[in-house]
């Protein structure tokens, strides 16, 4: 009996199981193999908020969503096509993401009485047995049993044996999607180089899963997802926090400066600290401070000393930095403040994503304290945007707030990475006694044509000076209570930020014409969902365009013109409407909000629906 191979353009698999089942690893291995093969991919992990919520419970389910395609894609997608459910809780937690007719690969062993009870299935009815899954294609396999069989004479204990379960599922999926095992085999060999028995066990189970597909009569179709025609070049897969970390290291080196990263752990920002701490050979100094205030203050100290000072946090941790950010605004020193946004307010939803700190970034400190706000729009864009943030901060002597979020921070995508040589140098505005001294006196607050003051760091002879948080004289920087001087300084700090608009690109379009029926205007992590929606809308013949704002303060000079040229402007945000307040306050054009505050990213469908509603007006 023959096996049909069916072509597919775009597949979404969800690996779901107990935190202990290794679904994150399984998912990333399949991602790498697919990426390597040439598919475009997009992934989105979804951890439980607790470290280890009770085994077998819904709260304990860990999921990894993988989308791979022969077309290019921008998000992990909406409806899942194939779902791996290692136990009952995993099924329960995710079943409503599965599309009708989708496939469930269920580990029957994970549906025993105990698991059903833990998953709180009422009167322990077993979904694998009743009709509740009829509208799906159910594949049951006793992964545990088959894994154990495969390893009977491996000499390993059951605990170790059971840890190989995920490889069985992975192997089977490789068969199902016509994938080669090499990649994963290489990984296993490297990872367990020092543990030959474990290594062999994993390899054996991986193959066992693959052959199970081959040998088992019941599977009559395999699928093939051809390679996408991505632009040719060298690729790697990158997560947002990783991209941010790498960008910071590159920026510091391109500026010829040391990198100092002062931070206090918090989800989801911590991984940037973890990543940077692994790269000390680049001269990176990471400092885990006693709290967020100490973290930013230490970074300010490092900046005063002539390093690229960076601090990062999330949620409540950013709120704590407000006072010190104000100091940095006053000192007019370079400083990067990274906010990996999460669900708020207060402690809120630490592991969920949100874009609700934009207005805090603009106004979250006392007094008139303008700064630069910039936001990356995808995992790989984090790299570029981090460098851009550092460039602005160092060349304009101004603190920059960088707004990432949990979605892109933990998401990953293939990245056609650049060569270091092609990344332009950054030119810090260092003081030079020869130029700066005027009659033997240094004027630390004299400004150049961009209203930027010079950066005199300790050790520079004859440039000794004192800075501080009290209002300062326009030239000498000495404390000044003079009313006119205050007005002048408030204005200078504002103008300095606004002048940066002369040094950033004009607002462009991701897709669509420069004018039309509808502009979908996004910022940050909504880019992928908007892009998918707009692509379809254009395909359907609508005059729709997509612009994604990276520079939120100052806005690109032409933004006013950009919004003017459309009948409707739709602003989707993962918050209750923040960018739209800035747009409505600044421009005469009235925009329409699309808000989602569920700790989850937009689906393309949600955006499309709202767009169609406006288009039909």
């Amino acid at each position, binding site marked *: 009996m023959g096996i049909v191979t069916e072509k597919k353009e775009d597949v979404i698999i969800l690996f779901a199981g107990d935190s202990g089942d290794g679904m994150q690893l399984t998912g990333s291995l399949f991602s790498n193999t697919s990426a390597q093969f040439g598919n475009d991919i997009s992934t989105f992990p979804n951890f439980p908020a607790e470290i280890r919520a009770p085994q077998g419970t819904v709260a304990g389910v860990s999921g990894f969503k993988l989308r791979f395609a022969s077309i290019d894609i921008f998000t992990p997608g909406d409806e899942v096509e194939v779902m791996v459910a290692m136990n009952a809780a995993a099924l329960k937690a995710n079943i409503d993401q599965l599309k009708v007719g989708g496939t469930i690969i269920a580990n029957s062993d994970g549906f025993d009485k105990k698991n059903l009870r833990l998953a709180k299935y009422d009167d322990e009815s077993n979904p694998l047995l009743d009709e509740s899954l009829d509208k799906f294609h159910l594949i049951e396999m006793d992964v545990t049993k088959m894994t154990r069989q495969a390893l009977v004479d491996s000499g390993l204990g059951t605990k170790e044996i059971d840890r190989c379960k995920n490889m069985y599922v992975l192997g089977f999926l490789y068969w199902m999607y016509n994938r080669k095992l090499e990649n994963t085999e290489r990984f296993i060999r490297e990872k367990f180089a020092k543990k030959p028995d474990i290594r062999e066990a994993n390899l054996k189970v991986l193959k066992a899963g693959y052959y199970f597909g081959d040998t088992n009569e019941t599977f009559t179709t395999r699928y093939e997802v051809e390679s996408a025609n991505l632009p040719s070049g*060298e*690729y790697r897969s990158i997560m947002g926090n990783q991209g941010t970390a790498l960008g910071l*290291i590159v920026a510091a080196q391109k500026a010829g400066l040391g990198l100092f990263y002062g931070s206090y752990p918090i989800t989801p920002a911590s991984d940037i600290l973890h990543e940077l701490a692994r790269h*000390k050979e680049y*001269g990176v100094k990471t*400092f885990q401070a006693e709290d967020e205030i100490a973290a930013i203050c230490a970074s300010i100290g490092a900046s005063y000393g002539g390093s690229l000072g960076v601090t990062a946090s999330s949620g409540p941790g950013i709120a704590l930095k407000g006072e*010190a950010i104000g100091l940095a605004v006053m000192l007019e020193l370079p400083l990067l403040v990274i906010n990996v946004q999460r669900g708020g307010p207060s402690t809120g939803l630490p592991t969920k994503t949100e874009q609700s700190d934009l207005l805090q970034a603009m106004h979250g400190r006392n007094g008139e304290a303008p700064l630069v706000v910039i936001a990356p729009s995808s995992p790989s864009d984090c790299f570029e945007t981090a460098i851009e943030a550092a460039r602005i901060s160092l060349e304009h002597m101004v603190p920059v707030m960088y707004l990432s979020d949990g979605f892109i921070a933990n998401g990953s995508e293939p990245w056609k990475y650049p060569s*270091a040589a092609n990344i332009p140098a950054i030119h810090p505005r260092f003081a030079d006694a020869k130029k700066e001294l005027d009659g033997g006196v240094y004027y630390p607050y004299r400004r150049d044509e961009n209203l930027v003051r010079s950066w005199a760091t300790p*050790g520079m002879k004859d440039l000794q000076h*004192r800075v501080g948080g009290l209002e300062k004289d326009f030239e000498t920087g000495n404390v000044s209570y003079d009313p006119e001087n205050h007005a002048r300084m408030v204005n200078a700090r504002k103008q300095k930020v606004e002048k940066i608009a002369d040094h950033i690109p004009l607002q462009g379009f991701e897709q669509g014409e420069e004018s039309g029926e509808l502009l979908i205007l996004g910022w940050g992590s909504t880019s992928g969902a908007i892009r998918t929606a707009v692509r379809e809308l254009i395909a359907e013949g609508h005059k729709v365009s997509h612009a994604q704002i990276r520079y939120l303060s100052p806005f690109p000079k032409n933004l006013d013109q950009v919004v003017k040229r459309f009948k409707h402007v739709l602003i989707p945000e993962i918050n209750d409407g923040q960018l739209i307040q800035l747009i409505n306050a600044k421009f005469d054009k009235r925009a329409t909000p699309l808000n989602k505050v569920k700790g989850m990213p937009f689906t393309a469908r949600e955006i499309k629906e709202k767009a169609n509603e406006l288009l039909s007006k």
Partner: protein
Amino acid sequence: MSATDIQPLTAKDLATDQDVRWCPGCGDYSILKQMQSTLAEAGIKKEDTVFVSGIGCSSRFPYYMDTYGIHSIHGRATAIASGLKATRPELSVWVITGDGDALSIGGNHLIHALRRNFDVNILLFNNEIYGLTKGQYSPTSPRGQVTKSTPMGSLDHPFNPLALALGADATFVARSMDRDPKHMRAILQAADAHKGTSLIEVYQNCNVFNDGAFAAFTDKGTKASNTLFLEEGAPLIFGHEEELGIRLSGMKPEVVALSDVSKDDLWIHDSRDMGKAMLLTRMFDDPRKESALPRPFGVFYREDRYLYEEVMQEQIDKAKAVKGEGDLDQLIRGGHTWKVV
């Protein structure tokens, strides 16, 4: 005239063009003066010296030193100094702070700075009051103190700053006073010489909002009998005619007359003995109290411990030694890549 053509640095050279804006008679003036002459004597390089302060009358200090300086925000000077020192180990970094700045809002940064042991000198101007905000009680004000915010007297049991510092594993702990210039300079030198974080508590008179808080220790008439000046290796002796000494009976210090007790039986000061240092910090009686123990001044404790900035740099050197100077392309590429053709 020095033989070389470089003029030796004088205290004046360290002054700035800013008028000093403390109240006439404020103890801060003397501390500023001692700092300027001590650093001049030490022949520091102005451009390699940084004064970091928080907010308070005392924290105005950096404006009056012609070095680099940051008059930062309330309580955070130690944190700022940590980042500066971590990245610029070669600089001489001084933190200027007050009893409110260091022990109230800045308490956490202080104790963490002390345990981490950057090579930074912290001068804590203790006037037992919030001066700049016009006279509220501080964490060092004695219980019952009547101030603007405590018309019926303060309720708080005050901190014992040096006991707190030892509890935080400080490696250098000392006390001096504004009214004893010679002692101040000696302590400033000792702190500067110490490799690690030095905490110097300076009793400073706020003649406007808390005048005479330390009179018992600073006034001619009472100083000798209420103060105990510590000298390394020397017995603990005090009194107008140096007629009294301190002896340890078990773990209790007691005052004895040298007429009855020989010097050899007295407590000999050893600033490297943590146990003794802890007891010294607890010699904290109200001088008005009957049979009060004298208040110690000098270096209570010193310990040699690795510097944070040094081990930080060592890890970087080690990483470079093992992995080689970081190569950006390698960093960007990461572990796993593939080609699309």
